[in-house]
């Protein structure tokens, strides 16, 4: 669609941009706001010289810094969505502007085609904002240079190269190619001189950076941050878009002959174009919307806010299949004292992978693995996971929170204060930093009614060496030194249930009485009945706690259903699943 500036209404001119902005805003702000949530949680922008300095040691670092700054505003999804959609719209507008400068016309097809592809890319929650910022900066600077090409006698295009390289790193390729195509198409001697000078200067910059300035690998100096933060199909599509943008001066000069019999007015063009654009955006939005991810991130959000009951309620209504979701749900169950009651209300991994995560230097594992240890009172190990995650991935709000809490529990107030100080220098976590300060003061003044003091009482008291490769052994060692650790005990029993370890369960049954339980958890009662059945009806020793009548009745019902199908396990499964799918018996029979 073309737009003639002289006779068009300004409303029509802005209509497609407004439509693009609106759709992207609604999508990111209200429909797929989990994307903003994930990106905001993945980094923490800190107002300090140290934080800035960390980003100055390589070309492109400033772009990442800027990206993190803008990502901080994703804390408020409506604001974050506005930023994201504005960046995308500005990219579209920049391309249109470039087109106008080069050809005198406002051709919108290429602009919005790129906009749509970028929207498609942005629907992937791992596609960070710096990608679009990088593109916008190249386009914006290119636009400025060709618009004000008389400045510095036309040498602005060359003078600006060091700034672009240092600020945007690997994105400079886009600028260099854009400018090359632009300069070559002019084909004048002086302009060709600028072309060669631009590339020569770039080469000198790279060699200087490589030899004398930056301690970075060649790959980093040439491609950072593009290749370092993008991968797979996302990277390929992004490179294609970047490639198209790079050759814009050539593409925009291609003239399409208009069919004489098919000419429509500007108004019609604008409306039809906008409609088609809206249609495409909506199709992409629907196709790319990931409800599973949305649910998972919602659960994660509730979890990190310690809203454990809501985690469980949500997962009950929306049964999860994702291992990580179930892992978080199990922690929520344990924190609310229901792990051995409701373990089988949710799908579990029979090897115990939904109970604890084995140590791996992968971001999602490092980010979450420590929370099981925190719940079970292994505070040092929880701290270690959070610290290693910080070393590998940098500061995040949730990571800092865990570091602060574990340091407070261990009474390392000086270190806790340092982490609180860092949190205080963030944009939107200052209030939380103040809360932690008050908590620390409360601890120092001998306060008793707070999470830290309570956790301190539950903390592993006797020392041993942890084994990250086999988390279950840590449970055993914790219980060996502190048999009154209720949460560790629940995890142990959950592990034994998942492994159908009847001997293990039998051996530990008296533990419930010792820990002050007045009744056995539901799944343990189910296991007790299973043990009794296998021992010719003799009930195992559970101390003074008896299996409830309700569970006995339920077992009879289970048997009745099975008998109705002639004790055929396969035939009975659908009915048993429906009525008893959340029991240990069903798990034993069918998993």
């Amino acid at each position, binding site marked *: 669609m073309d737009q003639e500036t002289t006779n068009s209404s300004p409303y029509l001119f802005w209509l497609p941009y407004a439509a693009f902005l609106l759709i992207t805003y609604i999508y990111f702000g209200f429909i797929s706001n989990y994307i903003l949530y994930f990106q905001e949680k993945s980094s923490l922008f800190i107002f300090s010289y140290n934080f800035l300095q960390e980003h100055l040691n390589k070309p492109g670092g400033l772009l990442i810094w800027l990206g993190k700054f803008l990502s901080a505003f994703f804390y408020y999804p409506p604001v974050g969505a506005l930023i994201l959609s504005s960046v995308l719209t500005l990219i579209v507008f920049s391309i249109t502007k470039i087109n106008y400068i080069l050809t005198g016309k406002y051709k919108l097809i290429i602009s919005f085609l790129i906009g749509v592809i970028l929207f498609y890319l942005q629907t992937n929650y791992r596609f960070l904002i710096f990608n679009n910022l990088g593109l916008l900066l190249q386009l914006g600077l290119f636009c400025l240079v060709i618009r004000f090409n008389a400045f510095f006698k036309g040498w602005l295009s060359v003078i600006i190269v060091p700034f672009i390289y240092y600020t945007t790193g690997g994105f400079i390729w886009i600028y260099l190619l854009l400018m090359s195509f632009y300069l070559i198409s002019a084909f004048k001697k002086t302009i060709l001189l600028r072309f060669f000078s631009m590339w020569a200067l770039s080469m000198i910059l790279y060699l200087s950076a490589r030899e004398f300035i930056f301690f970075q690998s060649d790959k980093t100096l040439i491609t950072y941050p593009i290749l370092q933060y993008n991968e797979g199909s996302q990277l390929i599509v992004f490179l294609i878009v970047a490639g198209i943008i790079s050759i814009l001066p050539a593409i925009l000069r291609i003239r399409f002959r208009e069919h004489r019999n098919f000419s429509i007015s500007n108004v019609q063009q604008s409306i039809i174009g906008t409609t088609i654009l809206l249609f495409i955006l909506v199709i992409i939005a629907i196709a790319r919307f990931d409800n599973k991810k949305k649910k998972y991130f919602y659960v994660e959000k509730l979890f990190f806010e310690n809203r454990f009951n809501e985690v469980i309620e949500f997962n009950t209504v929306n049964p999860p299949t994702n291992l990580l979701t179930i892992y978080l749900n199990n922690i929520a169950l344990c924190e609310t004292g229901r792990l051995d009651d409701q373990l089988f209300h949710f799908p579990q991994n029979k090897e115990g992978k939904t109970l604890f995560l084995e140590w791996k230097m992968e971001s999602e594992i490092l980010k979450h693995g420590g929370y099981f240890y925190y719940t079970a009172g292994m505070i040092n190990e929880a701290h270690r996971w959070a610290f290693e995650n910080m*070393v590998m991935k940098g500061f995040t709000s949730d990571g800092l929170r865990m570091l602060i809490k574990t340091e407070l529990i261990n009474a390392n107030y000086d270190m806790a204060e340092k982490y609180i100080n860092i949190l205080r220098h963030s944009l939107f976590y200052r209030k939380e930093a103040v809360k932690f300060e008050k908590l620390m003061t409360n601890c120092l003044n001998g306060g008793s009614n707070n999470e830290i003091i309570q956790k301190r009482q539950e903390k592993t008291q006797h020392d041993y060496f942890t084994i990250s490769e086999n988390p279950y052994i840590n449970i055993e060692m914790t219980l060996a030194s502190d048999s009154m650790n209720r949460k560790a005990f629940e995890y142990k029993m959950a592990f034994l249930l998942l492994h159908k370890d009847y001997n293990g369960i039998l051996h530990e049954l008296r533990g419930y009485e010792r820990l002050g339980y007045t009744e056995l958890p539901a799944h343990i009662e189910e296991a007790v009945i299973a043990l009794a059945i296998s021992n010719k009806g003799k009930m195992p020793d559970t101390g003074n706690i008896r299996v409830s009548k309700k569970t006995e009745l339920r077992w009879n019902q289970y048997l009745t259903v099975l008998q109705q199908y002639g004790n055929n396990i396969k035939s009975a499964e659908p009915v048993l699943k429906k009525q008893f799918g959340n029991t240990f018996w069903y798990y034993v029979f069918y998993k």
Partner: protein
Amino acid sequence: MNIFKTFLYKIKYLIEALHSRSMGYNNNLRIFRIIRYLIILAFLLYSCGSKPYGSITLSELAPQLEPDYSDLTIPPNISPLNFIIKQKASAYYVKIFSDSGSEIVVKSGNGKIRIPPSKWRKMLLGNAGKNVKIDVYSKDDEGRWLKFKTINNKIASEKIDPYIYYRLLYPGYESWNELSINFRNLESFKSESFIENSVVDQNCVNCHSFNNGKTDDFLFHMRGTLGGTYFYRNGQFKKINLKTSDNKNGAVYPRWHPSGKFVAFSSNKIIQRFHAADNKKIEVTDLESSLLLYDVELNEIMNVEAAGKETFMDTYPEWSPDGKYLYFCRAARIGKDYDYKKIQYNLYRVPFEIDKRTFGHSELVFDAVQINKSAAFPRVSPDGRFLIFTLADYGCFPIWHKEADLYSLNLIDLKVSRLDLNSDYCDSYHSWSSNSKWLIFSSKRDDGLTARPYISYINENGISSKPFILPQSDPEFYKSFLKSYNIPEFSTVKIDLNPGKIRKLAKTAPVPAKWFKN
């Protein structure tokens, strides 16, 4: 109030004058005079407002400085000791003055005191061997001034070595991302990366070691895909693979022989484990260790034949300044089932014949086991008079031991004493300056976790002065900086190394060292 009225009158006059600017020369002169008046007024107001005047209350209390730069002995060539005054006030006035009468004044509204470097340098160098005093004044909200007790610091006559090299890393567990070996000019705040592991494919860089800091004999290890030991000498680098089939544990902790011809290494099999409950985060234990001698010129590596080595674990070599003795730490060899808390090291030494590359019989220098302790990191002063080492309850990795302290062994009368510079937290890895007067060491006294470099003066009797933390341009730097200063080493030389050289060298294949069977 009169000043205020005059000020307002002048402003009004100025506006009128500017408005009727067309009235020519006289008017312009009037404008000029008014502007001059306003500038002088502003200056006077500034000066009067931030300088103590009137009745000043004298306090017996000392100002609380952070970092604590009071009652020190400082080198005459150290960078400014910038600090924060912790007592709350609306304004601060600090006067730094010397015995010779020179004076530096620093004013602040927030308690941060940044001393002008050039004035500081001039004052210190002009008063070496004398005192420098600090008077701190604070103003409360009512405008009343208070003067704290004067701080007195002594300026030593002896300069400190101009550089320190150290590794910067998070005081973490097992993973690393960014590792660098840095150097800092102690006479200014300038610090730079010497090597960053990002230039060598994220390999680990560690164990940097100078030859007494006087020459540019230098080495460091790299662990990973581009692994090897990198020797630097006379502007040239060599990459050597010190691991042979006869020393499967490789070469770990290095110490240059003063001649520069040899390097002693320990060869260690190390495990690292993590405490579940103890406030000690990490436990590092040697399962086996022995000493090696590397001949730099011949590229030969061999065992250090110290008597009894078959039944012991030897580690942390250190040469005497004359190169005739090799000091080291020795513990009984452990079996399969061992109690890590019972592994304790004594201090030994063994004579060395440089021409024959042979060692004599080892002798016990300090029996740490007898007092239920363990010694590590022996470091002999360049003048050969003292040996400082770290003493902890057990083990050979005291940086993770809160109880670790620095002790001094007088090499003349072999008396051992605990240094006064110690704190309630880990005080460990230390390095002597080339003139034997300054000691830099790692201390976790700040927060219990991050190791910071502290500097202390050692007098002719081996007595240490109150240590002070490495000064920074921003006195609040350490509040938010989370990395540890690991293995701080003095040096008098600045090694010329750039990323291009490192990258080129790292890509080359290492030259294998030859095993010499002695």
